[in-house]
């Protein structure tokens, strides 16, 4: 394909239609393709053949870093940098350090989860070929689309178009890159 085309986009009216069509595109062996939906369609991940999201791994890393940060900070400030006896209590104890470490675990997990979600999604990305399609705005409202990218090894204008038509796609259009 010439680089002037990003790929093909097809319109679907209902959630069950895109669910069926996504299974067909998956079974045809495409890799670089996507569904555009106004809401997360239940079961569409499986129909697209997507694996489990990697976000929780990043969340776990964030949580561990948060807990260590809390414990280390309280140990270093109280038992290393400026030792001070308050109320006859020890300079450091994991007991009194726990509540703050617990909160920092949650705080850092939240940062890692949201940062990780944006990172894995490649957002922010304010300009994208899909967003140039004139009817894409309905994809935020009530319409469903399948986009197959031209860089997919199996992409072939005629065959891909035929697949989308056979899957029930309407208004199949070429997207400019």
């Amino acid at each position, binding site marked *: 394909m010439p680089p002037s085309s990003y790929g093909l986009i097809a319109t679907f009216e209902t*959630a*069950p239609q895109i*669910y069926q069509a*996504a299974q067909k595109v998956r079974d045809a062996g495409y890799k670089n393709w*996507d*569904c*555009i*939906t*106004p*809401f*997360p*369609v*239940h*079961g*569409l*991940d499986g129909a697209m053949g*997507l694996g*489990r*999201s*990697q*976000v*929780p791994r990043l*969340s776990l890393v964030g949580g561990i870093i948060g807990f260590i940060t809390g414990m280390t900070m*309280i140990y270093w*400030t*109280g038992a290393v*940098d*400026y030792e*001070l006896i*308050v*109320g006859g*209590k020890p300079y450091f104890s994991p007991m*009194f*350090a726990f*509540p*703050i470490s*617990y*909160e*920092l675990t*949650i*705080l850092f*997990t*939240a*940062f890692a*989860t*949201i940062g*990780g*979600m944006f990172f*894995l999604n490649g*957002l*922010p*990305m*304010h*300009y*994208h070929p*899909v967003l140039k399609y004139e009817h894409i*705005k309905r994809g*935020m*409202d*009530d319409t469903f689309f399948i986009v197959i990218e031209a860089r997919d090894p199996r992409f072939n204008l005629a065959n891909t178009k035929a697949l989308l038509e056979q899957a029930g796609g309407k208004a199949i259009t070429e997207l400019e890159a």
Partner: protein
Amino acid sequence: MGAHHESSSTAPAILAEVNPTALPRAILVENNRSYSWITEKICGIIEGKTPTWWWVCFALACFVASFTVAGISYLVATGVGVWGHANPVNWAWDIVNFVFWIGIGHAGTLISAILCLLRQKWRTSINRAAEAMTIFAVVCAGIFPVFHVGRVWYAFYLFPIPNSNAIWQNFRSPLEWDVFAVSTYGTVSVLFWYVGLLPDLAILRDRFEAAGQRARSFIYGFFAMGWRGSNRHWSNYEMAYLVLAGISTPLVLSVHTIVSFDFAVSLLPGWHTTIFPPYFVAGAIFSGFGMVLTLMLPLRAVYGLQDLITQYHIDCMCKITLATGTIVGYAYGMEFFIAWYGANPNEGFAFVNRAFGHYAWAYWIMISCNVITPQFFWFKSVRHNTSLVWILSIFVNVGMWFERFVIIVTSLARDFLPSSWGYYSPSIVEIFTFFGTFGVFSVLFLLFIRFLPIMPMAELKAVTPQADVHGGEKH
């Protein structure tokens, strides 16, 4: 369902799968509304002309908020002595108001996180507004401890930032735990709210662009981060949302636990009890649901959202209020029982003094509002009478404020040394400051309902019947 087809000689003695009885599910979006109806309804609120009532309410809210500004300005200019605190009552309205507002926030997180984990889909239409309520309540709560430090320009000493004295915070103190708990709570609530808003901001971006309003489209688009509804994104998004719900649940429980540690870790009779963490959490959720009802019922009426906030939603909220209110009532009884059973004369005195001492009026307001009021929610006729539910929700708010007042002030006013006993009354500055926070809260909430979608459109669409890819069949 398919078990019948396998009935032959090879059929196993047990069913291949067990299909639970299909219970009729409550309809969450009534009158079979389409996706675009939802978009039009929610976006229409933002895109339409600003209603007159909004300006009236906004002006009124600004006026009320100015009382907080006045109270705080006078405090900063003069000193913390302008509040009515004096030995032995060195904590009073400031901490009462702080705990009151934090508690209100907790229902928002309960709705958005705990009900999400429990797959209570009815949360979808109320979670956005409830989360907004959380954030604004935390803002109001934060005012009190920050200005109670007196010299507010030193408030950064609360955080472990290197300073010229080279000394660090006392991490053994529950007050320092509270700093971390509340700031984490505020931050995570904002992030959770923002992630939920992301797809809806993209809708608004596109609609304003189509309407030719470039500036508004740019602002919404900037915060929408280029969201384009990709299912690969939705996959990560939903997982991130689930993880956030998963961590917000222990967060909301820990925040009010740590707030209760401010009291429970001390040695004061009436405070030094192990029941405080669960009792405070239940009370927080109780007061929060009271506030959700107080806010959502007028909103539903004004914007005609009866198809989205259905009678079923109101029933659910009333029942949670009833359940948590009853837990709170149980805690009041258990406190008395333990005070008697523990046989500590100081502890026993603290509780008898609460119910029959100088502050008995506050105690009985608390009991009437918190224990008796929610019992009306046992009756369907009450739950179906929207005006009555709204009035009862106000009583819940009042009662929960008095609960914190009773706990904090009665215990301090009668401490260990009878010679130092006192009676606390608030000064006019405290009254102004507290009264004004309702204005601060209302200003923020009015701005929210004017400029942001008050319901999560994408989530609402996902719970409509037509969103089911299996056409309603079990799978």
